[in-house]
């Protein structure tokens, strides 16, 4: 009896795993099949080919898109960590009425979906001459990622004993000095969470990029792919290869750092 329930549990486990892998299996089949091979998508390719990848890489200009993704994600994450950590220190340490108000104001921005202010935001970026520039996307990404970042950093700084600050003060450090020399180094674990959460969001972003990056030379992977796909809808194998390439970088990072991804996600949630 006990054995049967054990076996059924493992059958369940395998079924869940297989079910969640099916989309990737189909994508794999299609990406490696030549367009002449018109068998069902469920079938493994008879003669695997790299042609689809070459075509998608060329036609969607994915090497350029990859470079754009790297630039935008790097600077957005760098700025969000810097601005977020700076802002969180006084908000966590000096909880005056005014600072509590500022904190609430920052956190309430969490529920403002960027798209609800699309019209005026887009116009504002146009007026600033920010269309087709990296900085416009980076700045908007940073702004909309800041509430979460401030939320995580203040939560973490609250758990750092105040005695450390006091010890610094006695040693004659300034508050800024205390922040950079004592607090900043302690923020490493939460910083890795922020980098993962925000980095992922910026890397995969479509809603800002599609508006602000209209010129092909500045487009990121999701935007480049969406235009490639609307152009080559009938070349399903190319589309599949494009999607495959598009998801590859993050998948590789995830498989190597999955402990941090999962821990980061759980931390991010529980600190609430």
């Amino acid at each position: 009896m006990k054995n049967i329930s054990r076996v059924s549990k493992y059958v369940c486990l395998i079924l869940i795993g297989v079910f969640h892998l099916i989309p990737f299996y189909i994508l794999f089949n299609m990406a490696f099949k030549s367009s002449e091979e018109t068998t069902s998508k469920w079938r493994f390719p008879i003669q695997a080919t790299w042609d689809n990848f070459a075509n998608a890489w060329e036609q969607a200009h994915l090497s350029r898109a990859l470079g754009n993704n790297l630039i935008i994600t790097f600077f957005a994450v760098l700025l969000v960590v810097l601005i977020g950590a700076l802002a969180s220190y006084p908000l966590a340490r000096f909880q005056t009425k005014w600072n509590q108000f500022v904190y609430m104001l920052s956190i309430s921005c969490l529920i403002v979906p960027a798209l609800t202010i699309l019209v005026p935001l887009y116009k504002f970026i146009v007026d600033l001459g920010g269309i087709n520039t990296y900085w416009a996307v980076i700045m908007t990404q940073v702004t909309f990622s800041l509430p979460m970042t401030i939320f995580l950093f203040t939560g973490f700084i609250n758990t750092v004993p105040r005695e450390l600050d006091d010890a610094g003060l006695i040693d004659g450090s300034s508050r800024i000095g205390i922040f950079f020399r004592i607090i900043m180094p302690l923020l490493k674990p939460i910083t890795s969470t922020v980098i993962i959460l925000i980095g992922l969001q910026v890397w995969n972003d479509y809603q800002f990029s599609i508006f602000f990056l209209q010129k092909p030379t500045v487009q990121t992977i999701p935007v480049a792919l969406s235009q490639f796909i609307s152009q080559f809808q009938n070349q399903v194998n190319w589309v599949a290869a494009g999607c495959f390439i598009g998801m590859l970088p993050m998948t590789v990072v995830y498989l190597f750092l999955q402990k941090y991804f999962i821990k980061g996600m759980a931390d991010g949630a529980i600190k609430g």
Partner: protein
Amino acid sequence: MRKHIRTSAWINLMYLPALIMFGLFIFYPFIQGVRVSFTNWNGYSPDFQWVGLDKYKALLQDKNVLITIKNTFIYGFGSTILQNFFGLLYAIFLDRNLKGKGIVRTIVYLPVIISPLIMGYIWYFFFQYDGGTINDVLGLFGKEAVDWLASGKVAVWIITFVNTYQYMGIAMIIYLAGLQSIPKDFYEAADIDGAGGWIKFKRVTLPLLMPSITINVIVNIIGGLKLFDVIIAMTNGGPGYASSSLSTMMYNLYFARQDAGYAAALGNVMFLMIAVISITALIALRRREVRL
């Protein structure tokens, strides 16, 4: 207790950069959005007229808006219910001592890190009419192929399903962390009282999971109500507006129909809706949390 707060005001300058960013890219546009919604501005020309509440009145009479709001609710609440149900189910199942559960956890979580746009394109292969994988299976059993995405009503649920498939990993991880934080003695005490599995779940697990439930519900509601990428990838909101959400409709109104005033009015309605729903949910859920 803190004895005293020693601070000079200039330390508060540290959050000035953040406040400037919020001011420039959230508050200023937000106020402008309210202004624009009272005009008939088309999005680019310097001329426009004040039209008062006309755009809001038009919203109320627009059938497409009604469909879109209904869809948005399905995306929001449908995904929330599904993600939490399956996330919790998986978490409870994977909390057991099973070999290989780590691999399954990795697999279930994998879609979370992939662009939702790409996820939408991948799932499109399943629901395509011609050569779609699901129609292939139906054909195997001698059934007629179905044009899944041609009907808005079905497409809305398909998109909800795809969104659930993609993000249920987050709910699972948060519930797993929640389950592991429940002290084992609580279950032992329940055992001594002779409580069965269901009673233990209802009386011990669920109440102690309330903080995780709060987080998951809020995150999923906000995520679902502003769903955009997957819809663009799978149906582009179509046919017509039959599967559009408020996000895709705004995009469409502004860029395709060039009706900025109308899009701004819709944006304000959407903001109000999401704010009211998520704050209500937050307050209601927080009340039910128990402290350890």
